[in-house]
């Protein structure tokens, strides 16, 4: 089936199988390998992207369902001039990543939290991260980074 969509500002048209998952379409067909797949049960959140400005687990929808959508992946989050998104910058500042595997999903989720809930407190952020698993950091740097970016967004 033919689908057309915009990914990181670029219009893309492809003929794809109807059973292809969006995560596999991004990774295997388009070789946008920044989006990761860490489980097969929609639990880990490594595959989170922004679909029409909302955080979505790309392992849990079909690529054909994204026909016509605007998608941003981790590769497209930084500014065109290469400047890091405030959430990316905060992850670096607060040591919010170690092995880096969960990181793209965490950052995309973090950016979504900051957009929806500027000024969110620690407990809110921890609960918002229910669908993202990290095995390295104990979440400490991740929560600190999102709190920091979230207060900046509110101008605190």
């Amino acid at each position, binding site marked *: 089936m033919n689908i057309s969509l915009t990914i990181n500002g670029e219009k893309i048209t492809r003929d794809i199988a109807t059973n292809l998952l969006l995560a596999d379409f991004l*990774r*295997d067909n388009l070789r*946008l*390998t*920044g*989006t*990761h*797949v*860490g*489980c*097969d*049960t929609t*639990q*880990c959140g*490594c595959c989170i992207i922004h679909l029409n400005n909302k955080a979505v687990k790309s392992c849990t929808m079909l690529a054909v369902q994204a026909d016509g959508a605007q998608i941003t*992946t*981790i*590769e497209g*989050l*930084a500014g065109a001039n290469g400047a*890091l998104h405030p959430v*990316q910058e905060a*992850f*670096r*500042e607060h*040591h919010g*990543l*170690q*092995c*880096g*595997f*969960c*990181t*793209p999903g965490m*950052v995309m989720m973090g950016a979504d939290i900051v957009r929806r809930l500027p000024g969110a407190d*620690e*407990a809110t*952020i*921890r*609960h918002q*991260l*229910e669908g*993202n*698993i*990290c*095995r*390295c*950091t*104990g*979440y*400490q*740097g*991740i*929560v600190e980074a999102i709190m920091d970016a979230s207060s900046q967004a509110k101008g605190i």
Partner: protein
Amino acid sequence: MGQYGIGQPVRRKEDVRLLTGKGRYTDDIHFDGQLWAAFFRSPHAHAKIKSIDSAAALSVAGVRHVFTGEDMRKGGMKPLVADINFTDRKGNKMYKPVRHILPSDRACYVGEPLVMVLADSAEAARAGAELIEIDFETLPNITSTAKAAEPDAYVLHPEHGSNIAVHWENSAPDEVDALIAQAPHKVKIHLVNNRLIVAPMEPRCAVATYDAKEDVITLYSPTQGVRPAQAGFAGLLGIDKKKLRVISLDVGGGFGIRSKRYPETAAVAWAAKHINQPVKWRGDRSETFVSDHHGRDQVNDAVMGLDKNGRVIALRLETIVNVGAYSGDNGPRLPIDGGGRIIPCGYDIEKFYFSVKPVYTNTVPTDTYRGAGRPEANYIMERLMDAAAEECGLTRDEIRRRNLIPLSKMPYRTQMNFVYDSGDFIGTMDKTLELADWKGFASRRKETEKRGKLRGIGLASFVEQAGGRPTEEMRVKFDENGKATVFSGTFSHGQGHETVYAQMVNDYLGVPFDQIDFVQGDTDTTPPGGVGTFGSRSSMMGGVAIKRSCGQIIMKGKKIAAHLLQADPAAVTFENGLFRVGVSSISIQDVARAASDPAKLPEGVTPGLDESNLFEREPDLNNFPNGCHICEVEVDPELGTIEIVKYTALDDCGVVLNPLIVHGQVYGGVAQGIGQALTEDAIYDAESGQLLAGSFMDYGMPRAHHLSMIEAHFTDDQPCKTNDLGVKGAGEAGACGAPPAFVSAVCDALTPYGVKHIDMPLTPERVWTAIQQAKAHKAA
């Protein structure tokens, strides 16, 4: 020491790449013409294989090959025999079953890979694997750790006649038993150290290519060090290790289980050569649950005798460790001369009997997982000390103060023949009590109780041992433009080596931080003596080798600088990147440029500024990170739920090279320790032998909301005395401190009900049940 020098919280070089989706993990690579592998796995815990029929699988469109283990054996694949040997006190050797890569006669655990299918696409390979027909004759099974050691247990490997691989003992028990029998105070504990799924976030993956002309297989796979993987897999494949190149790209977490000789990885490498075509296997998470080694899984029984002052007289400890269906290279070793050799940890105990029985069961093999025996050892000692405090009528800190090894006894030779070089265990505990406001707990408890909840506080004083294998090689090389590159024998899979090693080179050689490159993870470039990263060893082994490489560079640089400046080499000094003689100076970059031109070198000096150092330490000169962790919890007695409200950690990691990164190691270790104690449990069904916790839906990975902010501190007044840097390992301390501190806190909260102990994980159901049972007991 500048902004980027040793000791600074330098932000990581790795981060921009990993934050912008430019990380490169094994699953990100593909080769033209690659076939995809899928495995048919045993659905049974234990079954005889009567026949294997591949016809239906081969009829699937896109399926190209089906290989059994028998095919692989005919094609040179060797069986996997663990590199591990122990004997009992009578001299009987440990029994090691032969493990065939994809066995064709018998399946010994659920998920054991039995047949490999290769196809044009991953989907076709999976569809083919589903159509493999095996005629199984199911056999009885045994999965329980405790039951496997019983004399009438079902025996998994009948040729041995028992599930117990070896009954290892440190001594005869008689003297200890006699002392305990006469002791005025006795405590007895029984602990289950729960089996864990390690679950690094990147599922396992392997890609292999074959160069027929050179007869070289190139294997891409996540490891914790390419050299051990090269030697291990070349051995299985029956080839010279020069004929196997191993490359590890970015690796999504390791925690001990990465560098192991897994059957799937061996099969992928074998197939690429056999069919002369690239082969890729992408393990999914469910496969990873039944194919990556598991962690922990011990049952411990301990009895301790104390005198009337609460001083330990003697300790008797018996451990059963479940090593799974076959012995991994470390499974049975962990309690004996692996991490568990640290026991009795920080305590000055003169008389000690220790028995270990590794048992085979129909489960996934267990092996190293963060701490690798030390968390288990410290958990035993800390639960014993809590029990002893109550028995002797002392507080939990006082019983420890009376039994911890005092600073005055350092260096201290342990029962298991380590020598602790440094560590102020009592001082560290006392400082932690202050940091955590131990004294102010009573008022915090009152406040909690007003809200209808219970509050508890617990502490753990722990010691661990770091270092792993005693050799490591690092190389520092300048190019003709004066840029430095570190070729690393260790392997960073999240620990930030690119950053920390650059800090060191920046500090020692004055090279700007951004002019230092980093290369790791390829047997074509990794120093020949490279080992890898596990056992919290990279700073103490790789770091020392870097320091010494830099020293060699300065020595050579002085000769070249002297020649260029027409001076006596003995008169040349080196500081901040400059070689100086009197008022003349030359930068290390200029010396490096000159070093590439033989015409500019003094006689007898070889071109290049490129030095390697193979650092070798005495095998037993590990270092001994230690610390004290204090955890405070609130328990809802109606629901059995636990909230961590405060967590204070004081760690003695010796000299800290980068506090940002070392704190990160502590946070991660604590989270894994809390995971073990609060949510994680790899449960097997006792009847069917099925792994019930088989995905992230069923297995309790700790999430952000299970944890609270950890207040982490370092004590820096006890540098390690046995390495050049004064460093101690930092990677595994958190996993040692967290489980006992947490369990102690919860049991403290449940004091009103008289609950003394709950086995991990302390799920709401277990806590609630313990409360109900205690209430019923009181009523009766």
